[in-house]
């Protein structure tokens, strides 16, 4: 196997292992569109990074995190429905990023790459980011797992039982922003948001506890990455979309009626 292929596989697996458990919460808490919105702010982050002369990756993380906190803060105001609020931020952030880029004559950003990513172009430095960041993210997620699960099931009950709800939720939202920002730079908006949603949704019908669902989602994500890479290599198809297609195929398979019925 070629080096670039191994790097792509290692990077994809590194991302899938984190997005499985993290994405489970995204699915449980109906935050799919929230993740999408954060991803759309990436362009703004890159522009900002160049503008004030910091690493674009850091720019993306800062903008994602800032947006995540802003949206979370505004959601508690409750004057506007959540999906409307997210729609406003999602499209404004993307447009603002495009407008900002237009002002910077010298900067050329590969929009195609940002949207679809290029798993095959992952460098060794990227791998360090993905695995270093991934281990950090997973550690944090494990640390807040029980309180986060408690407040997902019933927020007020969790609060009465002593869970610091605002703190835990804040950590989770920042964690999500961090994972999306780091991964998206390398694998694109499409792949990161898909890996957050599709593997957990696939795992749902096969799992009996939240923890089973999280672990299964990680495993399914890894299979999707491997399958997508293989397909991309075999049929010379674009890598990121191939991974998404293979994840969708797994979801379709898991939805077939001969599996254990999910409880409804």
């Amino acid at each position, binding site marked *: 196997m070629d080096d670039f292929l191994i790097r792509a596989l290692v990077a994809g697996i590194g991302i899938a292992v984190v997005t499985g458990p993290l994405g489970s919460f995204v699915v449980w808490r109906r935050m799919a569109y929230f993740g999408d919105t954060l991803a759309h702010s990436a362009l703004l982050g890159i522009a900002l990074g160049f503008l004030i002369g910091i690493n674009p990756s850091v720019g993306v993380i800062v903008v994602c995190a800032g947006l995540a906190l802003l949206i979370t803060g505004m959601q508690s105001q409750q004057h506007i429905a959540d999906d409307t609020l997210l729609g406003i931020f999602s499209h404004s952030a993307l447009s603002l990023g495009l407008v900002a880029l237009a002002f910077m004559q010298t900067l050329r950003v590969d929009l195609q790459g940002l949207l679809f990513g290029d798993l095959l172009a992952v460098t060794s430095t990227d791998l360090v980011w993905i695995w270093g960041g991934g281990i950090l993210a997973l550690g944090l997620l494990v640390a807040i797992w029980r*309180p986060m699960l*408690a407040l997902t099931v019933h927020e*007020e*009950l969790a609060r*009465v*039982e002593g869970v610091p709800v605002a703190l835990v939720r804040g950590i989770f939202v920042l964690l999500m922003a961090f994972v999306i920002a780091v991964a998206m730079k390398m694998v694109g908006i499409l792949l990161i948001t898909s890996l957050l949603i599709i593997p957990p949704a696939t795992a749902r019908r096969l799992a009996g*506890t*939240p923890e089973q*669902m999280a672990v299964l989602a990680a495993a399914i994500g890894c299979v999707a990455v491997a399958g997508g890479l293989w397909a991309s290599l075999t049929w010379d198809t674009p890598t990121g979309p191939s991974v998404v297609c293979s994840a969708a195929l797994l979801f379709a398979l898991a939805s077939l009626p001969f599996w254990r019925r999910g409880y409804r």
Partner: protein
Amino acid sequence: MAPGDIIAKAEHVFLRRGSKTLLENVSVAVEAGRIITVVGPNGSGKTTLVRVLLGLMTPDSGSVWLRPSLRVGYMPQRMQVDPVLPITVSRFLTLGGRANTQRLHLALETTGTGELADRPMQALSGGELQRVLLARAILREPELLILDEPVQGVDVIGQNELYELISQVRDTLGCGVLMVSHDLHLVMAATDHVVCLDRHVCCSGHPEVVTQDPAYLELFGEHVADKLALYTHRHDHRHDHGSPEKPAAKTPESRHG
């Protein structure tokens, strides 16, 4: 904590949301080892009062006091676990964070939910769910147990059993209990003290006394008398010729709310 000691109280609580007054000069006190029931029609501020006591809402004026480091068990009014979240009863119970296997078994046994341990939360009946919620509350070995409409979605026979269970829990743990009900007559036998709420405290005292209180009668209307009659006859009517009218329609909530 001796029986009769005050462990939690709200004093002269006022709470407004927008132009609506939700609580007006409400005072209640919960004593260790005693069961206090807050009754009142829909929209009378019962749940708001509970939320204020739990610290989930801050009153505009007045004070809320809980004995320092008081362990509180809470049974929320309504709960529905999203079907997308796979979770068994025993996993749900451990989410409160104070469970080991032994205590888990004890809580399951006490509430009669032992055989439900491996069931998905979404597959529980109304009565089973209430028992599981009670199990989670008592797992914390609470000194104060707050129950918001604990018999909701439970049939009449199950309601009596559940109230009995709550009395039992009070006896075993020696905790103070504050519960909310829209129906005084069912809860009468299981309560030591009643507070009748209609945004302000209309009357309070021993259940027998409260039911004779003019303020109580006014709040629940003169129909209280024939409601009692309905109660006596309820078992004859339950499964009669598929009448679309459910027993629940005869509660004061739906009559006067």
